[in-house]
């Protein structure tokens, strides 16, 4: 499985190498590439700043101000991730046809990904050592200065890690920028793949995208280079919360709710109205039903295969620190950082070369999903297995169980909720995936996401409403799991 991410990348490089120096140069050093690059930078930096502002703002208010129903906020603030950016973009375009540009793209992606920052920051606030802020106050710092110089730096690494997820999402997002006519690198790569006679050109441009993604990962690593990750576990003390008057509390609560209203409540409301008023979808109800069935089956099969494939690696890497296991981890992490179009391109190149007959078949589509998503499974399964004490299966062995029996009946049994959560993430991600599906699906096979995509591109907005709602429902379970995991 280690090769799962690496092999497509290698094929991508081989295919690009075949273009030769001049061929690659012709793609990389032209105005179009520079434009794509600049647009991508504008979108990613916009998303980074917006998600940080939204995430830090909401997390700070929720953790420092006494609001009613403290636990509900964790779930409410996770809800936006249930709305894929392209569903939000679709709603925007359907309400105001002709909306295009970088700013709407930034808004849509930021609103549907800022919970990564919020939840990571909330969890960090909970772990932060609040007596450090006490000390700062007793050393003469005002509450504001103590917050900015002592508390905020403690949660900033977590916020930046969450922000990295938003940025990587923005980099790999295809459907939302495409709907809003924003030419990012991912849109450009897909365009070259679908429209160019030589698909190697898409690969060459794809390498620029890979470089950009890696730069962002490196940047995030660099910012937390000197921070102390161990100190987080030291002192857990109840956060002293500000008690404000009813008007101020209500005002701040409303402020926190605003992004959720914009990206969840408002779109769902609009979709429901369309559903009630529209009749066009009734004409292709059977199309919709078959797309839903296809999506469900693809998601289930992908989740099962990815989870089973991830288990051995997760089991090994959770217990042993070995050089090659770390290499496997690094490669999986790379897989999570790389935009899915890149992996899809690699898989296409590989399949055309090795098993041409599989190209544009369902098994190939599922294989691609698995390759892209297996790092997610490995991550959740490893975390779940690591939380089971090594002593537990050891005790089982002293009570007469064999090593493998002890592993299955004790370790795997206790890690099951975490492994299952990973499977839910994978399933939902596969069900919502757009560019890979468009690139590799057999002709005539539609998923909910491609339904929404094709209906939107021909301006059949009402017809797409049921698919859009279904996609939001698909995202609910992972959003809930995300908030639960962050709450710990």
């Amino acid at each position, binding site marked *: 499985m280690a090769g799962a991410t690496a092999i497509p990348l290698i094929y991508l490089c081989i295919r690009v190498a075949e273009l030769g120096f001049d061929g690659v140069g012709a793609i990389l050093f032209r105005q179009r590439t520079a434009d794509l690059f600049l647009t991508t930078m504008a979108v990613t930096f916009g998303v980074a700043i917006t998600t940080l502002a939204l995430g830090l703002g909401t997390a700070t208010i929720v953790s420092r101000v006494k609001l009613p129903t403290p636990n509900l906020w964790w779930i409410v603030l996770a809800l936006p991730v249930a709305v894929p950016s392209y569903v939000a973009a679709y709603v925007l375009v359907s309400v105001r046809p002709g909306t295009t540009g970088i700013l709407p793209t930034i808004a849509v992606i930021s609103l549907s990904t800022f919970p990564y920052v919020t939840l990571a920051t909330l969890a960090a606030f909970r772990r932060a050592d609040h007596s*450090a802020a006490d000390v700062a106050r007793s050393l003469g710092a005002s509450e504001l200065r103590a917050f900015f110089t*002592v508390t905020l730096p403690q949660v900033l690494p977590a916020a930046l890690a969450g922000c990295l997820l938003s940025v990587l999402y923005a980099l790999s997002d295809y459907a939302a920028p495409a709907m809003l006519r924003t030419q990012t690198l991912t849109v450009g790569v897909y365009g070259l793949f679908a429209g160019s006679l030589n698909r190697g050109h898409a690969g060459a441009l794809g390498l620029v995208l890979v470089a950009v993604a890696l730069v962002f990962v490196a940047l995030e690593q660099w910012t937390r280079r000197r921070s*102390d990750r161990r100190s987080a576990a030291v002192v857990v003390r109840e956060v002293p919360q500000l008690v404000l008057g009813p008007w101020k509390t209500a005002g701040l609560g409303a402020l926190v709710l605003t992004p959720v209203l914009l990206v969840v409540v408002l779109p769902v409301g609009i979709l429901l109205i369309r559903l009630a008023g529209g009749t066009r979808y009734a004409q292709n109800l059977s199309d919709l039903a078959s797309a839903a069935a296809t999506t469900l089956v693809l998601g289930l099969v992908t989740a099962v295969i990815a989870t089973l494939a991830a288990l051995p690696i997760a089991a090994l890497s959770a217990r042993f620190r070995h050089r090659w296991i770390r290499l496997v981890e690094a490669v999986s992490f790379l897989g999570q950082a790389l935009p899915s179009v890149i992996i899809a391109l690699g898989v296409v190149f590989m399949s055309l070369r090795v098993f041409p007959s599989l190209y544009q078949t369902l098994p190939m589509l599922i294989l691609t999903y698995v390759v892209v998503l297996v790092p997610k499974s490995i991550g959740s399964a490893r975390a779940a297995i690591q939380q089971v004490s090594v002593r537990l299966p050891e005790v089982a062995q002293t009570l007469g169980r064999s090593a493998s029996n002890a592993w299955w009946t004790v370790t795997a049994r206790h890690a099951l909720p975490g492994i299952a959560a990973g499977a839910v993430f994978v399933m939902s991600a596969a069900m919502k995936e757009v560019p890979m599906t468009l690139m590799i699906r057999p002709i005539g096979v539609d998923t909910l996401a491609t339904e929404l995509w094709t209906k939107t591109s021909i301006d059949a907005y009402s017809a797409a409403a049921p698919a859009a709602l279904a996609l939001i429902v698909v995202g609910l379970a992972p959003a809930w799991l995300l908030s639960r995991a962050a709450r710990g």
Partner: protein
Amino acid sequence: MRLRLTNLNAGFGTQPVVSDISFDVAPGELVTILGASGSGKTTLLRAIAGLHPARSGHVLLGDQDVTNWPAQKRRVGLVPQEGALFPHRTVASNIGYGVPRARRVERVAHMLDLIGLSDRAAAMPHELSGGQRQRVALARALAPAPPVLLLDEPFSSLDAELRGALRVDIARILAETKTAAVLVTHDVAEALTMSDRIAVLEESHILALGTPTELYERPPTRSVAEKLGPASFLPGQPVDEHQVQTALGVINTFEPLATSEQVLAMVRPEQVRLTSAPQADSYEGTTGGLAHKVLRTEFRGDTQLVFVEPAAGVSLRVHAHPSEKWVPGDDVHVQVLQPVHIVAPSLVG
């Protein structure tokens, strides 16, 4: 500067956490608040620092009533549990946090020298050992030369050896800087060794306040006596003003008896000696020639604990030299070496 608390009350919601706390701390003096976890120690410290609001009562620094001052204006030094160093700042930057820019470099260098960590100025907190972290936390609190220093169980995360060394260091530094200090701890040995005075805190009230010797030898109540170390309590009938009849015989009391009612005599394990034959007492008073049975023994290395039952339901705990070979069932005679302290008769039983 002198710290003075008068009738201080603080709590959460309707729940009082500390009630009616009054004591003084003189410059250079270290007062320990001794209490179990949950007794309100940390809240009391936070109230002194201005981090927790006082419900009523006053906090005075010198002649200044600072009860309504926010923490940043009081500038009381605070060393929390585990040190709570700012994890993203270097040692030097931690120490310099509360010092005005103009004096920072010089002051940080001085503090680093004082704690003996001049070579670690650029280290990050996670690169330090536990003892080093605590010393940096102390230096950071003392760098702005605060009038009062508050220490919240500063040694609880350290191993015994390091703890001893750091106690000595802190006592020296506090004496050198003439800082009034309040230490909270649940560790009796720490309280007895470090403090000039100890305040025993229980259920939000101060039960007793005094020097370590006063509280150890002459605690006002049985409960305070037990908090400061193991002790046995023998019911006794006053014979005259200085003698009381107990299960060990007639023994002398430390303070004159003003009552003829039954009283409770406190016997610390090191105040008695076991012998196999009756001995002449080393002070005036007699324990008579009664023989008692050894119940059980515990070997402790440098000492040996022997439990004797002089009367039904009364267990006497004795520190014996480890070379004495006592076996359960042995007949022993108990020699009381000093006049005993009578705890308040109102708390008998």
